[in-house]
Protein backbone atom coordinates (compact mmCIF):
# COMPACT_ATOMS: atom_id res chain seq x y z
CA UNK A 1 0.00 0.00 0.00
CA UNK A 2 1.49 3.31 -0.96
CA UNK A 3 -0.87 5.29 1.22
CA UNK A 4 1.00 7.73 3.37
CA UNK A 5 1.81 7.18 6.97
CA UNK A 6 0.42 10.45 8.26
CA UNK A 7 -0.90 9.24 11.57
CA UNK A 8 1.23 6.63 13.20
CA UNK A 9 -0.02 4.38 15.96
CA UNK A 10 0.87 5.89 19.34
CA UNK A 11 2.27 2.63 20.73
CA UNK A 12 4.47 2.27 17.66
CA UNK A 13 5.61 5.86 18.09
CA UNK A 14 6.39 5.14 21.72
CA UNK A 15 8.54 2.18 20.67
CA UNK A 16 10.33 4.33 18.12
CA UNK A 17 11.01 7.06 20.65
CA UNK A 18 12.26 4.38 23.00
CA UNK A 19 14.82 3.47 20.30
CA UNK A 20 13.31 0.07 19.68
CA UNK A 21 15.27 -1.40 16.78
CA UNK A 22 12.48 -3.68 15.64
CA UNK A 23 10.08 -0.74 15.45
CA UNK A 24 12.69 1.27 13.59
CA UNK A 25 13.16 -1.58 11.17
CA UNK A 26 9.39 -1.63 10.56
CA UNK A 27 9.51 2.12 9.97
CA UNK A 28 12.39 1.70 7.56
CA UNK A 29 10.69 -1.10 5.65
CA UNK A 30 7.50 0.94 5.25
CA UNK A 31 9.19 4.19 4.27
CA UNK A 32 12.50 3.32 2.58
CA UNK A 33 11.10 3.19 -0.95
CA UNK A 34 9.51 6.60 -0.63
CA UNK A 35 12.60 8.12 0.96
CA UNK A 36 14.93 6.50 -1.52
CA UNK A 37 12.75 7.78 -4.36
CA UNK A 38 12.96 11.27 -2.81
CA UNK A 39 16.72 11.04 -2.38
CA UNK A 40 17.12 9.77 -5.90
CA UNK A 41 14.84 12.49 -7.24
CA UNK A 42 16.88 15.22 -5.61
CA UNK A 43 20.37 13.82 -6.16
CA UNK A 44 19.70 12.09 -9.47
CA UNK A 45 22.60 9.78 -8.70
CA UNK A 46 22.31 6.34 -7.18
CA UNK A 47 25.53 6.45 -5.18
CA UNK A 48 24.69 9.87 -3.79
CA UNK A 49 21.10 8.78 -3.06
CA UNK A 50 22.39 5.79 -1.11
CA UNK A 51 24.62 8.03 0.98
CA UNK A 52 21.66 10.37 1.55
CA UNK A 53 19.54 7.40 2.64
CA UNK A 54 22.22 6.25 5.05
CA UNK A 55 22.82 9.68 6.57
CA UNK A 56 19.10 10.48 6.75
CA UNK A 57 18.04 7.30 8.53
CA UNK A 58 20.93 7.57 10.97
CA UNK A 59 19.77 11.14 11.71
CA UNK A 60 16.18 9.91 12.08
CA UNK A 61 17.34 7.21 14.48
CA UNK A 62 19.39 9.64 16.51
CA UNK A 63 16.66 12.28 16.69
CA UNK A 64 13.53 10.16 16.83
CA UNK A 65 13.16 10.73 20.58
CA UNK A 66 12.97 14.49 19.89
CA UNK A 67 10.28 14.17 17.26
CA UNK A 68 7.26 16.34 18.15
CA UNK A 69 4.07 14.82 16.82
CA UNK A 70 2.24 18.04 17.66
CA UNK A 71 4.24 19.91 15.04
CA UNK A 72 3.97 17.53 12.13
CA UNK A 73 3.37 13.99 11.07
CA UNK A 74 6.22 11.53 11.35
CA UNK A 75 6.36 11.12 7.62
CA UNK A 76 6.51 14.87 7.03
CA UNK A 77 9.31 15.09 9.56
CA UNK A 78 11.18 12.24 7.89
CA UNK A 79 10.79 13.70 4.39
CA UNK A 80 12.11 17.01 5.68
CA UNK A 81 15.20 15.24 7.01
CA UNK A 82 15.76 13.34 3.76
CA UNK A 83 15.12 16.44 1.66
CA UNK A 84 17.42 18.66 3.72
CA UNK A 85 20.15 16.00 3.80
CA UNK A 86 19.85 15.57 0.06
CA UNK A 87 19.91 19.30 -0.68
CA UNK A 88 22.90 19.81 1.63
CA UNK A 89 24.58 16.91 -0.06
CA UNK A 90 23.92 18.40 -3.45
CA UNK A 91 25.14 21.80 -2.39
CA UNK A 92 28.31 20.22 -1.10
CA UNK A 93 28.74 18.60 -4.49
CA UNK A 94 28.31 22.00 -6.12
CA UNK A 95 25.31 20.65 -7.90
CA UNK A 96 22.93 23.32 -6.83
CA UNK A 97 22.77 25.18 -10.09
CA UNK A 98 21.32 22.78 -12.53
CA UNK A 99 20.76 23.57 -16.15
CA UNK A 100 17.33 24.34 -17.47
CA UNK A 101 17.61 21.43 -19.92
CA UNK A 102 18.00 19.10 -16.96
CA UNK A 103 14.85 20.50 -15.48
CA UNK A 104 12.80 19.75 -18.57
CA UNK A 105 13.78 16.12 -18.57
CA UNK A 106 13.89 15.96 -14.81
CA UNK A 107 11.21 13.36 -14.23
CA UNK A 108 12.30 11.31 -17.20
CA UNK A 109 15.91 11.24 -16.08
CA UNK A 110 15.21 9.50 -12.82
CA UNK A 111 14.33 5.91 -13.41
CA UNK A 112 11.60 4.53 -11.21
CA UNK A 113 13.08 1.14 -10.43
CA UNK A 114 10.14 -0.40 -8.74
CA UNK A 115 7.01 1.73 -8.95
CA UNK A 116 4.22 0.53 -6.78
CA UNK A 117 1.24 -0.73 -8.72
CA UNK A 118 -1.26 1.36 -6.76
CA UNK A 119 0.69 4.47 -7.57
CA UNK A 120 0.47 4.02 -11.29
CA UNK A 121 -3.01 5.46 -11.57
CA UNK A 122 -2.08 8.49 -9.52
CA UNK A 123 1.12 8.85 -11.41
CA UNK A 124 -0.90 9.18 -14.56
CA UNK A 125 -2.98 11.84 -12.88
CA UNK A 126 0.07 13.76 -11.78
CA UNK A 127 1.33 13.66 -15.31
CA UNK A 128 -1.75 15.65 -16.19
CA UNK A 129 -0.50 18.32 -13.85
CA UNK A 130 0.58 21.28 -15.94
CA UNK A 131 4.35 21.27 -16.58
CA UNK A 132 4.67 24.72 -15.03
CA UNK A 133 3.29 23.33 -11.76
CA UNK A 134 5.48 20.25 -11.91
CA UNK A 135 8.41 22.53 -12.57
CA UNK A 136 7.71 24.80 -9.63
CA UNK A 137 7.35 21.81 -7.28
CA UNK A 138 10.61 20.41 -8.57
CA UNK A 139 12.49 23.64 -8.06
CA UNK A 140 10.99 24.61 -4.74
CA UNK A 141 10.73 21.23 -3.12
CA UNK A 142 13.27 18.96 -4.73
CA UNK A 143 15.95 21.49 -5.45
CA UNK A 144 15.42 23.60 -2.37
CA UNK A 145 15.39 26.90 -4.17
CA UNK A 146 13.99 29.88 -2.32
CA UNK A 147 11.10 31.67 -3.96
CA UNK A 148 13.43 34.46 -4.95
CA UNK A 149 15.98 32.05 -6.44
CA UNK A 150 13.25 30.15 -8.27
CA UNK A 151 11.78 33.40 -9.58
CA UNK A 152 15.15 34.42 -10.95
CA UNK A 153 15.90 30.97 -12.26
CA UNK A 154 12.59 30.60 -14.08
CA UNK A 155 12.66 34.27 -15.01
CA UNK A 156 9.15 34.94 -13.79
CA UNK A 157 7.96 37.52 -11.26
CA UNK A 158 8.05 36.48 -7.61
CA UNK A 159 4.29 36.91 -7.28
CA UNK A 160 3.70 34.64 -10.26
CA UNK A 161 5.97 32.01 -8.79
CA UNK A 162 4.14 32.09 -5.48
CA UNK A 163 0.80 31.78 -7.21
CA UNK A 164 2.05 28.83 -9.23
CA UNK A 165 3.40 27.16 -6.10
CA UNK A 166 0.06 27.49 -4.31
CA UNK A 167 -1.86 26.35 -7.35
CA UNK A 168 0.46 23.36 -7.74
CA UNK A 169 -0.26 22.28 -4.19
CA UNK A 170 -3.97 22.88 -4.64
CA UNK A 171 -3.89 20.71 -7.75
CA UNK A 172 -2.12 18.01 -5.82
CA UNK A 173 -4.71 18.27 -3.07
CA UNK A 174 -7.41 17.85 -5.64
CA UNK A 175 -5.74 14.84 -7.23
CA UNK A 176 -4.98 13.03 -3.99
CA UNK A 177 -8.05 14.22 -2.18
CA UNK A 178 -10.22 12.48 -4.74
CA UNK A 179 -8.20 9.29 -4.42
CA UNK A 180 -7.94 9.11 -0.66
CA UNK A 181 -8.83 5.75 0.71
Amino acid sequence: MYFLLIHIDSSELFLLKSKDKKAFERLYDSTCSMMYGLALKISKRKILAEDIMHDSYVKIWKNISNFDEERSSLLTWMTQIVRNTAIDSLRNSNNKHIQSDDMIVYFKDVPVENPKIDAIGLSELVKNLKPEYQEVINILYYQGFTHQEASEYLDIPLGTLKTRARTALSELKLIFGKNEH
Partner: protein
Amino acid sequence: MNIKEYIESGILEDYVFHNVSDQQRREVECMSKIYPEIRMELERMQSSLIKFIELESTSPSQEIKARIFSSIQEDDYNKESARLNGEGAKNVIKLSNWPKYAVAAGLALTFLTAFLYYSTVKQNNVLENQIAQLNSEQKLLLDRDKKYSHKLGILSDPDYKKIKLNGLSDKDSLAYVTLLWNPNNKSVFIDHTNLKNLPNTKQYQLWALVSGTPYDMGVFDPISYSSFELIPMKNADAADAFAITIESRGGVESPTLSEMVVMGKI
Protein backbone atom coordinates in the same frame (compact mmCIF):
# COMPACT_ATOMS: atom_id res chain seq x y z
CA MET B 1 -8.26 36.64 12.99
CA ASN B 2 -9.73 35.67 9.67
CA ILE B 3 -8.71 32.05 9.25
CA LYS B 4 -9.84 31.87 5.65
CA GLU B 5 -7.71 34.85 4.77
CA TYR B 6 -4.75 33.37 6.61
CA ILE B 7 -5.08 30.11 4.71
CA GLU B 8 -5.47 31.92 1.42
CA SER B 9 -2.47 34.17 2.11
CA GLY B 10 -0.21 31.43 0.80
CA ILE B 11 1.85 31.19 3.97
CA LEU B 12 0.95 27.51 4.38
CA GLU B 13 2.25 26.65 0.91
CA ASP B 14 5.42 28.57 1.66
CA TYR B 15 5.71 26.57 4.85
CA VAL B 16 5.27 23.27 3.03
CA PHE B 17 7.95 24.27 0.52
CA HIS B 18 10.23 25.38 3.37
CA ASN B 19 10.25 28.91 2.11
CA VAL B 20 9.56 30.68 5.36
CA SER B 21 11.72 32.44 7.89
CA ASP B 22 12.13 30.91 11.35
CA GLN B 23 9.66 33.43 12.73
CA GLN B 24 7.09 32.58 10.02
CA ARG B 25 7.63 28.88 10.64
CA ARG B 26 6.95 29.30 14.36
CA GLU B 27 3.91 31.42 13.51
CA VAL B 28 2.43 28.75 11.20
CA GLU B 29 3.08 26.00 13.76
CA CYS B 30 1.52 28.10 16.49
CA MET B 31 -1.51 28.97 14.36
CA SER B 32 -2.03 25.36 13.36
CA LYS B 33 -2.11 24.38 17.01
CA ILE B 34 -4.64 27.06 17.86
CA TYR B 35 -6.92 26.72 14.82
CA PRO B 36 -7.91 23.20 13.75
CA GLU B 37 -8.90 24.54 10.30
CA ILE B 38 -5.36 25.75 9.68
CA ARG B 39 -3.92 22.48 10.94
CA MET B 40 -6.22 20.46 8.69
CA GLU B 41 -5.33 22.58 5.67
CA LEU B 42 -1.65 22.24 6.43
CA GLU B 43 -1.97 18.46 6.86
CA ARG B 44 -3.84 18.23 3.56
CA MET B 45 -1.03 20.09 1.80
CA GLN B 46 1.66 18.03 3.45
CA SER B 47 -0.09 14.78 2.75
CA SER B 48 -0.64 15.81 -0.88
CA LEU B 49 3.03 16.57 -1.24
CA ILE B 50 3.97 13.32 0.47
CA LYS B 51 1.67 11.41 -1.84
CA PHE B 52 3.26 13.21 -4.71
CA ILE B 53 6.70 12.26 -3.45
CA GLU B 54 5.54 8.72 -2.84
CA LEU B 55 4.73 8.36 -6.52
CA GLU B 56 8.44 8.31 -7.12
CA SER B 57 9.05 5.48 -4.64
CA THR B 58 11.93 3.29 -5.58
CA SER B 59 13.06 0.26 -3.62
CA PRO B 60 16.58 0.67 -2.34
CA SER B 61 19.03 -2.19 -2.25
CA GLN B 62 19.32 -4.38 0.82
CA GLU B 63 22.90 -3.15 1.20
CA ILE B 64 21.62 0.30 2.17
CA LYS B 65 19.50 -1.17 4.93
CA ALA B 66 22.42 -3.25 6.16
CA ARG B 67 24.65 -0.18 6.10
CA ILE B 68 22.13 1.95 8.00
CA PHE B 69 21.49 -0.63 10.69
CA SER B 70 25.17 -1.31 11.01
CA SER B 71 25.75 2.39 11.68
CA ILE B 72 22.88 2.47 14.16
CA GLN B 73 24.34 -0.53 15.93
CA GLU B 74 27.74 1.15 15.94
CA ASP B 75 26.22 4.39 17.23
CA ASP B 76 24.54 2.47 20.02
CA TYR B 77 27.77 0.65 20.75
CA ASN B 78 29.68 3.95 20.84
CA LYS B 79 27.08 5.52 23.08
CA GLU B 80 27.16 2.51 25.35
CA SER B 81 30.94 2.58 25.33
CA ALA B 82 30.90 6.30 26.05
CA ARG B 83 28.40 5.70 28.82
CA LEU B 84 30.46 2.88 30.22
CA ASN B 85 33.64 4.87 29.77
CA GLY B 86 31.94 7.76 31.47
CA GLU B 87 30.94 5.52 34.28
CA GLY B 88 34.36 3.97 34.14
CA ALA B 89 35.91 7.41 34.27
CA LYS B 90 33.68 8.27 37.15
CA ASN B 91 34.70 5.04 38.77
CA VAL B 92 38.32 5.77 37.96
CA ILE B 93 37.89 9.17 39.49
CA LYS B 94 36.22 7.60 42.41
CA LEU B 95 38.83 4.91 42.57
CA SER B 96 41.65 7.33 41.98
CA ASN B 97 40.43 9.89 44.47
CA TRP B 98 39.00 7.60 47.06
CA PRO B 99 42.27 6.01 48.06
CA LYS B 100 43.93 9.44 48.11
CA TYR B 101 41.33 10.68 50.51
CA ALA B 102 41.42 7.41 52.38
CA VAL B 103 45.20 7.42 52.61
CA ALA B 104 45.21 11.10 53.57
CA ALA B 105 42.48 10.50 56.13
CA GLY B 106 44.25 7.35 57.28
CA LEU B 107 47.55 9.12 57.62
CA ALA B 108 45.93 12.04 59.37
CA LEU B 109 44.16 9.65 61.69
CA THR B 110 47.33 7.67 62.24
CA PHE B 111 49.29 10.82 63.00
CA LEU B 112 46.54 12.09 65.22
CA THR B 113 46.26 8.77 66.98
CA ALA B 114 50.01 8.50 67.28
CA PHE B 115 50.19 12.05 68.54
CA LEU B 116 47.38 11.49 71.00
CA TYR B 117 48.86 8.18 72.03
CA TYR B 118 52.30 9.72 72.39
CA SER B 119 50.86 12.68 74.28
CA THR B 120 48.77 10.43 76.45
CA VAL B 121 51.62 8.05 77.10
CA LYS B 122 53.93 10.94 77.76
CA GLN B 123 51.37 12.57 80.00
CA ASN B 124 50.68 9.25 81.65
CA ASN B 125 54.36 8.72 82.23
CA VAL B 126 54.66 12.19 83.65
CA LEU B 127 51.64 11.64 85.83
CA GLU B 128 52.81 8.20 86.82
CA ASN B 129 56.20 9.61 87.67
CA GLN B 130 54.57 12.42 89.56
CA ILE B 131 52.33 9.96 91.37
CA ALA B 132 55.28 7.68 92.09
CA GLN B 133 57.24 10.67 93.23
CA LEU B 134 54.36 11.89 95.32
CA ASN B 135 53.88 8.40 96.71
CA SER B 136 57.54 8.21 97.42
CA GLU B 137 57.51 11.64 98.94
CA GLN B 138 54.40 10.77 100.86
CA LYS B 139 56.01 7.58 102.06
CA LEU B 140 59.13 9.48 102.93
CA LEU B 141 57.13 12.15 104.67
CA LEU B 142 55.09 9.58 106.50
CA ASP B 143 58.28 7.81 107.46
CA ARG B 144 59.87 11.10 108.39
CA ASP B 145 56.76 12.09 110.27
CA LYS B 146 56.80 8.81 112.07
CA LYS B 147 60.44 9.27 112.95
CA TYR B 148 59.93 12.89 113.92
CA SER B 149 56.98 11.90 115.99
CA HIS B 150 59.09 9.21 117.60
CA LYS B 151 61.98 11.61 118.17
CA LEU B 152 59.63 14.30 119.44
CA GLY B 153 57.91 11.77 121.68
CA ILE B 154 61.18 10.76 123.24
CA LEU B 155 62.47 14.31 123.52
CA SER B 156 59.26 15.45 125.14
CA ASP B 157 59.00 12.40 127.35
CA PRO B 158 59.92 13.45 130.91
CA ASP B 159 61.07 9.94 131.73
CA TYR B 160 63.98 10.33 129.35
CA LYS B 161 67.11 11.93 130.69
CA LYS B 162 68.80 14.18 128.24
CA ILE B 163 72.54 13.78 128.53
CA LYS B 164 74.93 15.84 126.51
CA LEU B 165 78.10 14.06 125.47
CA ASN B 166 80.77 16.65 124.75
CA GLY B 167 83.73 16.43 122.41
CA LEU B 168 87.05 15.47 123.92
CA SER B 169 89.76 16.28 121.39
CA ASP B 170 90.52 19.67 119.92
CA LYS B 171 89.53 18.40 116.59
CA ASP B 172 86.15 17.29 117.86
CA SER B 173 85.68 20.10 120.32
CA LEU B 174 82.69 21.30 118.46
CA ALA B 175 81.22 17.83 118.36
CA TYR B 176 78.61 16.84 120.78
CA VAL B 177 76.00 14.16 121.01
CA THR B 178 72.71 14.17 122.86
CA LEU B 179 71.88 10.88 124.55
CA LEU B 180 68.46 10.06 125.86
CA TRP B 181 68.10 7.46 128.54
CA ASN B 182 64.97 6.27 130.26
CA PRO B 183 66.05 4.63 133.52
CA ASN B 184 62.60 3.14 133.92
CA ASN B 185 62.47 1.14 130.75
CA LYS B 186 66.25 1.18 130.27
CA SER B 187 66.01 2.37 126.64
CA VAL B 188 68.76 4.53 125.21
CA PHE B 189 68.76 6.73 122.05
CA ILE B 190 71.42 8.87 120.47
CA ASP B 191 70.87 12.08 118.52
CA HIS B 192 73.81 11.85 116.14
CA THR B 193 73.34 15.21 114.41
CA ASN B 194 76.81 16.50 115.12
CA LEU B 195 78.73 13.30 114.50
CA LYS B 196 80.74 13.16 111.30
CA ASN B 197 80.60 10.12 109.05
CA LEU B 198 83.34 7.51 109.37
CA PRO B 199 85.23 5.37 106.85
CA ASN B 200 83.57 2.10 106.02
CA THR B 201 86.07 0.21 108.16
CA LYS B 202 85.16 2.19 111.27
CA GLN B 203 82.08 2.47 113.48
CA TYR B 204 81.06 4.47 116.51
CA GLN B 205 80.61 2.43 119.68
CA LEU B 206 78.65 3.61 122.72
CA TRP B 207 79.74 2.73 126.20
CA ALA B 208 77.96 2.98 129.49
CA LEU B 209 80.28 3.60 132.40
CA VAL B 210 79.14 2.13 135.65
CA SER B 211 81.47 2.60 138.52
CA GLY B 212 84.36 3.11 136.14
CA THR B 213 83.65 -0.02 134.13
CA PRO B 214 82.65 0.41 130.48
CA TYR B 215 79.78 -1.66 129.20
CA ASP B 216 79.17 -2.08 125.50
CA MET B 217 75.99 -0.32 124.36
CA GLY B 218 76.31 -1.13 120.68
CA VAL B 219 77.85 0.19 117.49
CA PHE B 220 76.27 2.56 114.94
CA ASP B 221 76.83 4.35 111.69
CA PRO B 222 75.43 7.92 111.64
CA ILE B 223 75.22 7.75 107.85
CA SER B 224 72.54 5.12 108.16
CA TYR B 225 70.28 7.48 110.01
CA SER B 226 68.62 10.68 109.02
CA SER B 227 68.88 13.82 111.08
CA PHE B 228 65.30 13.58 112.23
CA GLU B 229 65.62 10.23 113.84
CA LEU B 230 67.25 8.91 116.94
CA ILE B 231 69.54 5.90 116.89
CA PRO B 232 68.30 3.18 119.21
CA MET B 233 71.01 1.60 121.36
CA LYS B 234 71.15 -1.27 123.86
CA ASN B 235 69.27 -0.87 127.11
CA ALA B 236 71.16 0.42 130.09
CA ASP B 237 70.17 -0.69 133.55
CA ALA B 238 72.45 1.82 135.16
CA ALA B 239 75.10 4.31 134.13
CA ASP B 240 77.26 6.98 135.61
CA ALA B 241 78.36 8.33 132.34
CA PHE B 242 78.17 7.53 128.60
CA ALA B 243 81.02 7.72 126.10
CA ILE B 244 81.45 7.09 122.40
CA THR B 245 84.62 5.77 120.83
CA ILE B 246 85.68 5.15 117.24
CA GLU B 247 86.37 1.48 116.76
CA SER B 248 86.91 -1.06 114.04
CA ARG B 249 83.72 -2.16 112.29
CA GLY B 250 81.81 -4.54 114.54
CA GLY B 251 83.12 -3.00 117.76
CA VAL B 252 85.40 -4.12 120.44
CA GLU B 253 85.03 -5.50 123.94
CA SER B 254 86.98 -2.71 125.61
CA PRO B 255 86.93 0.90 124.43
CA THR B 256 90.00 2.44 122.84
CA LEU B 257 90.35 5.44 125.01
CA SER B 258 92.53 7.24 122.54
CA GLU B 259 89.65 7.03 120.11
CA MET B 260 87.07 8.39 122.51
CA VAL B 261 85.12 11.16 120.82
CA VAL B 262 82.52 12.34 123.30
CA MET B 263 81.60 11.66 126.89
CA GLY B 264 79.01 12.93 129.28
CA LYS B 265 78.23 12.36 132.88
CA ILE B 266 74.73 11.90 134.15
